[in-house]
Each structure stands twice: as structure tokens, then as C-alpha cells.
């Protein structure tokens, strides 16, 4: 449905085959003042998998995503992305490396419509110069139309045609989450980080969202790291699960293995939900 043309952004680095390690974090520790948000965390994410990160509230899941896309800088540890050890980087670099994300508390551009929000996801791919932008003809208009076409494909894919021109501030929560997924997809990411994409949704919306996530992986081979509280969803759609509790990793494995793990059961019973 969406035959995305690779714009050459990732022409340099070698392609990584499905199943190979795409991202590896080793011994990551992150503290805010006295609060140890992450304590020597290690795990990897393989190309093409759906990797769930779960754990009770305050376990450090969001912090982990922020470390992965370079927004937080851990005090200790090493991150290897596509076989290269990453240095401290600016927040805008992650997007260039093909990492995009959604946020736990929806972070859409509230003054823009659905269409414009998803167009915003193409920011890095559009580069026709200032002169043409002033005139909005020739290269500038062609570029705008080409990217609009891509964005319309994403809109079709996510079944949000009816809210195309609606300012996102007015949308119900479930649709906002969907638009945010669309915006992240517009970046054509290699690694997609989803922070609680189904929080606050009803069963039907959760089923839709699960389907979209699996379709994304299926159609574009996108690797997905996902934080989710709903265990049913996690068991259904993820290939491997890492469990955090109080900033420590307490389990890592397939959904079945994790579910039977006594530490995990204790952690979830210890923190009343």
C-alpha cells in the first residue's frame, strides 16, 4: 500500500538483515539528582521485531526511550546503533538516524491540522531552498505535492481521512494517538519507539492500534520498541519483552517466559494497580 521510496537518507550505512541486532544498550545508568531512574540496564533490539518494555509506574520505561533517542544522556553505559557506538548527540540527530517516536502524553503540534501534523513528520526530508519557498512554484511546489502524496498514503493506512483538515487540538484522545503514530510513520523510521500508544483507549481502539502496529512492521519492516501497560496486548503483539522495576531490569525474554517469571509476578503484585 505504501511503497515508500528511500530518499537516500540512509544510503550510506549497510542494510541490516532481519533478526540481527539493530540497537544494543549496555550498562546504562541514569540519575536525576538523587533519583536513580535507570540502573545498569542492558538489552538489545533486533531488526524487525516488536520489543516490549514493561514495568510498574516509575520503573524507568520512558527514561529508557529518552536515552535511546538521545534526549537524555546516561551517566554510564554504552549504546550501539547499527553497529556503531554512539557518542553524546543532539536531540535532533536521532531523527536523522531513522529513530522516531510517539509520546506518553501526546505531543502533537496542537495548532496544526492532522494533515499538517503528519506533513511535519516529513520536515527532515524536505529541503528545497528559501528562494523557491518564497515563490512556492517549481521545485518547492513539486516537493510539497510529492510529500503530500506520501502523507495521504499514511492517512489512508491509519483510516483517518475524515479528520484530515481538523485541528488536532479538537480530536478525541484515541485519534490523537493515531495521528501521532502517523506523524512518526511519516519519518519512515527504521526504529519506531512507542510510549504507551494504547493508554486510555477502549478495547476496540486498542485492537485497531495493535493491528496498525503489526501492519507497520509487516509492510515496512520497521523495528518497534513499545511501552505498554496492558499485559494482554503485550502478550499478543510483542516478540520479546524486557521488564523494568525501580530502574532495574528484572526479566527479559519471550512473553511466555516473562509471564512465568517469579520476579515479574512479585513486582506487579507489589505495586498495586
Amino acid at each position, binding site marked *: 500500500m505504501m511503497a515508500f521510496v528511500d530518499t537516500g537518507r540512509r544510503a550510506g550505512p549497510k542494510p541490516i538483515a532481519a533478526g540481527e541486532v539493530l540497537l544494543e544498550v549496555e550498562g546504562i545508568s541514569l540519575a536525576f539528582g538523587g533519583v536513580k531512574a535507570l540502573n545498569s540496564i542492558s538489552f538489545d533490539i533486533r531488526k524487525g521485531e516488536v520489543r516490549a518494555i514493561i514495568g510498574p509506574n516509575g520503573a524507568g520505561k520512558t527514561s529508557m526511550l529518552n536515552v535511546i*533517542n538521545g*534526549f537524555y544522556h546516561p551517566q554510564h553505559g554504552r549504546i550501539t546503533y547499527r553497529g556503531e557506538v554512539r557518542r553524546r548527540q*543532539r*536531540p*535532533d540527530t*536521532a*531523527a*536523522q538516524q531513522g529513530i*522516531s*517516536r510517539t*509520546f506518553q502524553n501526546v*505531543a*502533537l*503540534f*496542537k*495548532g*496544526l491540522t492532522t494533515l*499538517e501534523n503528519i*506533513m*511535519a*513528520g*516529513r*520536515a*527532515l526530508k*524536505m529541503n*528545497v531552498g*528559501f528562494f523557491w*519557498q*518564497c*515563490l*512556492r512554484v517549481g521545485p*518547492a*511546489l513539486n*516537493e*510539497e*505535492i510529492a510529500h*503530500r*502524496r506520501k502523507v*495521504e498514503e499514511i492517512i489512508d493506512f491509519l483510516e483517518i481521512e475524515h479528520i484530515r483538515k481538523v485541528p488536532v487540538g479538537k480530536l478525541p484522545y484515541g485519534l490523537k494517538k493515531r495521528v501521532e503514530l502517523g*506523524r512518526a510513520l511519516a*519519518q519512515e523510521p527504521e526504529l519506531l519507539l512507542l510510549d504507551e500508544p494504547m493508554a486510555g483507549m477502549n478495547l476496540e481502539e486498542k485492537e485497531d492500534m495493535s493491528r496498525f502496529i503489526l501492519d507497520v512492521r509487516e509492510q515496512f519492516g520497521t523495528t518497534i520498541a513499545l511501552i505498554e501497560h496492558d499485559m494482554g496486548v503485550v502478550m499478543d503483539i510483542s516478540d520479546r519483552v524486557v521488564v523494568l522495576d525501580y530502574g532495574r531490569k528484572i526479566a527479559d525474554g519471550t512473553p511466555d517466559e516473562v509471564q512465568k517469571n517469579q520476579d515479574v509476578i512479585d513486582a506487579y503484585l507489589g505495586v498495586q494497580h
Partner: protein
Amino acid sequence: MFYREAGQFKTGYADDMAVFPIRQDRIGIAVILAIAYLAVPMFGSPFFVSTIMIPMLILTMAAIGLNILTGYAGLISLGTGAFMGVGAYACFKLATAFPDVNVLVWVLASGFFSAAIGVVFGLPSLRIKGLYLAVATLAAQFFLQWCFVRIGWLTNYSSSGSIEAARRSLFGVQITGPGASETARYLCVLTLLVALTWIASNIVRGRIGRKWMMVRDMDIAAELMGVRLLPTKLLAFAVSSYFCGVAGAMLLFFHYGSMESIAFNIELSFQVLFMVIIGGLGSLIGSYLGAGFIAALPVVIKFAPQILGIELPSAVVDQVTVMIIGGLIIFFLIVEPHGFARLWQIGKQKLRVWPFPY
């Protein structure tokens, strides 16, 4: 149901992305342009053209400039008056140093000087926001005004400290300086405004405008999506100051003819800011509505009672104007931050579904 898009199918994305996708809008804009270019010069009295239309259009240009910065990029500035001043002084210097080049070229070029100055004073915007940025731009306002007074070179060491528009013409018609007809000046101002509005609308609808709005609405998300904040904000300062600079040059050459530094003071900054707030943040139409309203209000308050046979002292007129503007600003800031432009939208929506409520 006078105003609707039913039956007007868009056949491509280019159509859908046009400035005025609905036919009635296109007709409307053609009518407005015809009135502005034909009816106003033919039927408008010299007083109406020179004391209402010309300053109103020039201030619209400045309001568009400030709106780009504040409405689209979310960066507040209280230095608009001074940035306009930079344009006026630059244009004065250029026009006197190179008298053979057409003055319209220098009006357009003077904007680049204020753009450069705007970028310099925009540098702190990477670190500071909101009130603190407002204070930083206030510093720019006072520093630049100080320069206008103290640096004699800027006024060619004129003893009065004022700068003057020399006599210049276009196609044999005098357009600036003493003796230029108000029609010629008006047509120059109108044409510059129409052309630059078109450019502004192109920029804000394209990838650059989108980046500004991304930074305005959620800078962290914008950054994580690959938008670099500093260049994006500085470009907003540059483009915004360009418009303000051209407006300042026009104010000198097409309106006053002679100006002192005091004209570019903080009051001018506030006047333009009020236009943007009342007209609507993040809307080019709003800049027109806001400037039109603020420019027309004192005149209406002054002359409307006269028509009814009541004579108001001018002090009362001033007071009433200030009170109305103040009240509207509070109203719009609290109730409707998108100003007149938003009311305009709502009105159009009502027309679309008329006579039904929804």
C-alpha cells in the same frame, strides 16, 4: 448557503493546497483588489488615501512581520519599532548614497539590514523564552533607538536629527519626497504590500512555516523530529525583521516624508503588537484586520459623532480609542487568542451552512 464548496471538486493536491481553494474566496479577493487598485484612487478623497489608507497598509506590513515571529514561530518581540527604524535609516542612507538606483529597490533592500540586525538580537531566543525574550527585545528597542540618536552618520549629520525622503520617481511619475501625489504613493505601498503578502503566505504554508509552527507548538517534539531550533528561530527573526524593515522604509518614504528617531519608539512596537493580537496570532488575514481596525478606529470615533451632530474634543477621542483598544486586547487575550481572524472564520462557517444553524 451562499458560500460553499459543494460541487467544486479538487482534482489534485496542488488545487487543494492553493491559497484560496474555494471559488467564492477567489472572487472575493479579486473584488477587493479591484477596489484597492481602482475604486480607492478614483473615488477616495486625498485625506482618506493619505491619512488612512497609506499608514494602514504600511502598518499591515509591519503586523505581518511581527505575526511571522510571534504568531507563527511563537517568539515574542517588543522591538518592532526599532527594527522598522533600521529599515528607514538604511533606506535613507542607501537612497542618498546611490541616488540613481530606483528608490523601490532600496526600499526592498533596506529590509535586509533589519533582517541582519533582527538575527543578532534573535540569538538569545535559543536559551530564553516568553517574558525574558520580551525583555531582551526591549533592550534591542532601546539600544537601536539610542543608535539612531547618537550616530550622526545615520542621519548624514543633519542638524535637526531627522531623516528625509528625497524626490524620486518611477516611470516619470514622482513617487517620493515633497510633492509626490498621494495616489502615486498609495499605489506603491499597495503593490509592495500585495507582493510581500503573497511571499509571506507562500513561506508560512510551506516547509519553513511548518517548522516555525512546530517549534511554536511543541519545541521538544520538533527537535526530536530533526528540526534544529536555532536556525529555525533565527530564520523567523530574519524574515520577520525584513518585513518590519520594509515597513519602516515605506513609512519614511511614502507616508511621513521626514522622520525623527522618536517615531520608532516603543509605542510603535506596542501598536503593531496590538494589531497582531487583535487581528489574530498566526493569521495573515488577521494582520490586515488588526491593522485596519487600529488605524480606522480613531478616525471613526472622531468623525462618527460629527455626523450625528455631536462635537467631541480630541482628548476625549484619544481616551475612548485607548479604552476600546485596551478592552479588546483583554477580551481577545482571554477569550479568543486568534482574534478577528477567528471571528472571520466562524462567520464564513456560518455562511456556509446558512440558513441552518449547523
